[in-house]
């Protein structure tokens, strides 16, 4: 039988390629899916107190959501690299969840602002902070993974940790992120004002 696809039946080679791709990006997909499930659950249950466990449950969901959004890179990076991903692919992998968050943010903002402004909303400081945090987490993951496998220190990972941490601090931690927030709003005003 020919290896070409016939009559809607996928060829073994194509199927194997698809499986390999899925295998490669699975860590990033799991992070994105976890974030989306928690995010949807939050949107569904927030503001509907059902009993004494409501506040604790909501807090748990909010804090859990930070995991895939800010810190999953610590696992996603080494997992993708171990599965043969290039550095570029792994970088896209660790940023997949912040990018998903940016898209969700813009989608929701479109309920309140015109489309272009909603798209600008996707560049908000939380997204920037999440991108930085994921870079930092990936650096930490790479460092630990590299030390475990080769006993060698990675300066690239160290640089990623520093850049990622500084980005996160400036974007969301330093005085509640207002030092980026106000310029971000001013840029908005310059563009759309």
């Amino acid at each position, binding site marked *: 039988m020919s290896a070409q696809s016939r009559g809607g039946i996928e060829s073994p080679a194509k199927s194997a390629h698809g499986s390999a791709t899925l295998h490669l990006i699975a860590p990033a997909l799991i992070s994105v899916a976890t974030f989306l499930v928690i995010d949807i659950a*939050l949107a569904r249950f*927030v*503001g*509907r*107190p059902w009993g004494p466990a*409501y*506040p*604790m449950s*909501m*807090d748990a969901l*909010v*804090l859990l959501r*930070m995991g895939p959004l800010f810190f999953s890179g610590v696992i996603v990076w080494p997992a993708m690299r171990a599965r043969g991903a290039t550095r570029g692919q792994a970088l896209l992998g660790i940023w997949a969840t912040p990018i998903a968050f940016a898209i969700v*943010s813009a989608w*929701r*903002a479109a*309920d*309140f*602002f015109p489309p272009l*402004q909603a798209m600008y*909303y996707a560049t*908000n400081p*939380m997204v920037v902070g999440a991108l930085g945090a994921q870079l930092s987490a990936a650096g930490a993951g790479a460092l630990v993974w590299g030390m475990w496998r080769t006993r060698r220190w990675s300066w690239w990972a160290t640089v990623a940790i520093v850049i990622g941490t500084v980005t996160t601090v400036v974007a*969301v931690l330093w*005085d*509640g*992120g*207002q030092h980026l*927030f*106000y*310029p971000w*709003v*001013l*840029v*908005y*005003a*310059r563009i*759309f*004002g």
Partner: protein
Amino acid sequence: MDVTRRGLLAAGLGAGVALGASACASPSTGGRPIPAPAPVRARAGAPNLLIVFSDDHRADHLGVTGAVPFLQTPVLDSLASDGVRFDNAYVTTALCSPSRATLLTGQYASRHGVQNNLSAWTPGTPSFFDSLAAAGYRCAYIGKWHMPGDLPDLPGVERFVTFTIEEGQGVYRDCPLIVDGVETPRPGTYVSTDLTDLALTWLDDGDDRPYCLVVAHKAVHHEFEPPDDLLGLYDDVEIDLPDEAFTYQTLLDRNVWEGTAGRLQTSYRRYCETLLGLDREIGRLAARDADNTVLIYTSDNGYSWGEHVLTGKRWAYDDNIKVPLIVRWPEGVVSPGTVIEEPVLNIDIAPTLLDIAEVPIPATMQGRSFAPLLRGDGVDWREDVFYEYFADFPYQVPPSQAVRTDRWLYVEYDRGLPPELYDTVSDPAQRANLIEDPAHAVTRQELSQRLAELRREFT
């Protein structure tokens, strides 16, 4: 063209720095003293007018209301017992900049144009300062201005002190000030105390004309930083959050931009401590010139502390639109300690000041003097109030218009969102939206018609 990674990085950094630098450039012009156009002697016995304007102080957060058992505001309580307190004082837009412009102009945001925190004050916009200066008053504005763009040269304002740091929000400590157009570092200061010091210095400069002074505080806006000696005062009190609230709701996308990320209870404790610090500074001002001075205390808007899972303002709910309003006027208030139930608005303050000063009220002002209510005069008063809110990026709060009566709150939103209806008597927290309840269909229709009338009248 040979594009290297280094070249791309440099270009990106350059663009970022250029954009950031242009965005961060603070307005540094304007804010200069403009004396009254011609020397005019004020009428004999004209009262001094002192307006103390706070930020984000919600109406029920006064010790005298008893709504928050541990909360202390002894000075404001004392002012309320010496004067009057309005139990139904509302703002026309629950947001910093529009509310400031409304205070000064007596107009809705639709009219004065400062519709959100990104809207600039239009030079030449008439304010009560113009009229008072023309009537022989010396005038000063000391404190938070917050409207973007160049600082204004307000006609008749002889002392203008404000801050532009953090896009006009200011900071609690070491807040650099713009004093009559000149940037002035203020190391070692706490902003509420510093503004009060400057106000007292201006009052004590020996000028015997009657004065109109606005002291606009940063407090109690976030970052909720109390004076050092009050920090932690409320650490051990029990905080009673609304049912729908939770500790880390501040991390929800709709709340995080308020800069309140962190434990809700901790922020709330700091808010209450900052309020006590503000109360103390108001006391320093109130202790001066008690006799022939009308002192008005109010705020730009309220604040949600967990209600509707919100941490902030802008919505038409009572937590956001109701503000404290206290007036001490020894010469005018007939029954000290009175709580006035009639609904008043921040557009009423400007005409009230002019009325008390016996200065003609310009037709441009949309508010109405509540001086007759202070005097205890029987007067026909409005039965409902109109509220409006405009989009304010990046806050995900839909533009809205609302009508608030003594019983109902009816809100209509732009962008096709369904309206809301609350019975504020049976449901003071406004949690049960009755808009789909057939039993209230007539009420809904009546309020919708009334809102349309108010919209036509005020916008």
